[in-house]
């Protein structure tokens, strides 16, 4: 038992504080946790933003999946990857681009990658700041996609 916890219980025993006050004090020092158990460390993604940034150019796209079973997936993708990928599409040979567009059309995504001009890429990235996808499944699973 640590010293703080002993002192609080001592004060309770002496009648200096009420049971409610003791409870509050124990909560404040985290005394409910079993000292034998290691303190759970926050996941490394704990410092990631929780929502889209209010201003500035977004740097990363975040995908956060939380399930009711306590499964959790966090993905952080640099938007430079998107920027470079879009720029690359303008350099794909025309024959290959035709094949890509046909395959995408067959898969239900009928848009022409040739329509994305390099000068529009920064606007696309900038407007991603306002994009936020929130999916709340009936079973309680949640998926969030945003850029910050």
């Amino acid at each position: 038992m640590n010293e703080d916890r002993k002192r609080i219980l001592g004060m309770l025993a002496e009648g200096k504080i009420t049971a409610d006050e003791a409870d509050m004090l124990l909560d404040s020092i985290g005394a409910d946790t079993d000292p034998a158990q290691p303190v759970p460390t926050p996941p490394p993604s704990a410092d990631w933003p929780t929502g889209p940034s209010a201003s500035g150019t977004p740097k990363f796209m975040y995908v956060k999946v939380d399930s009711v079973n306590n499964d959790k997936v966090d993905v952080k993708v640099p938007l430079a990857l998107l920027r470079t990928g879009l720029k690359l599409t303008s350099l794909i040979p025309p024959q290959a681009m035709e094949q890509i567009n046909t395959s995408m059309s067959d898969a239900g995504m009928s848009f022409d990658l040739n329509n994305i001009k390099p000068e529009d890429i920064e606007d696309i990235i900038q407007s991603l700041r306002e994009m936020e996808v929130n999916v709340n499944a009936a079973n309680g699973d949640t998926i969030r996609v945003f850029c910050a």
Partner: protein
Amino acid sequence: MSTYLPPLVIDVRVKEEGSRGFRIWLPIFLLWPLLFVLLALALIGTLVADLVLLLGGARYHHYTLLVLRSLGLLAAARGTHVRANNHGSRVNVDIY
């Protein structure tokens, strides 16, 4: 220049519940010399191809740029992080 700098390290950490887990630290930078040799050879080939296409009047003659941008795409993957937790098991992948 950092736009074309490929990833330095890929760090993979796997921890299963009740086990110590393991960590794989892949020093990709050790493969850079090989990559740069291959890149140099590819660039020589594409430069010649582009020159021939340009002189032949072809509309498309951007194979050199395509190779460079592909390298840029590889470089842009730096900063990707994946964290997955499943019933106490944990997988982290970081590309630096």
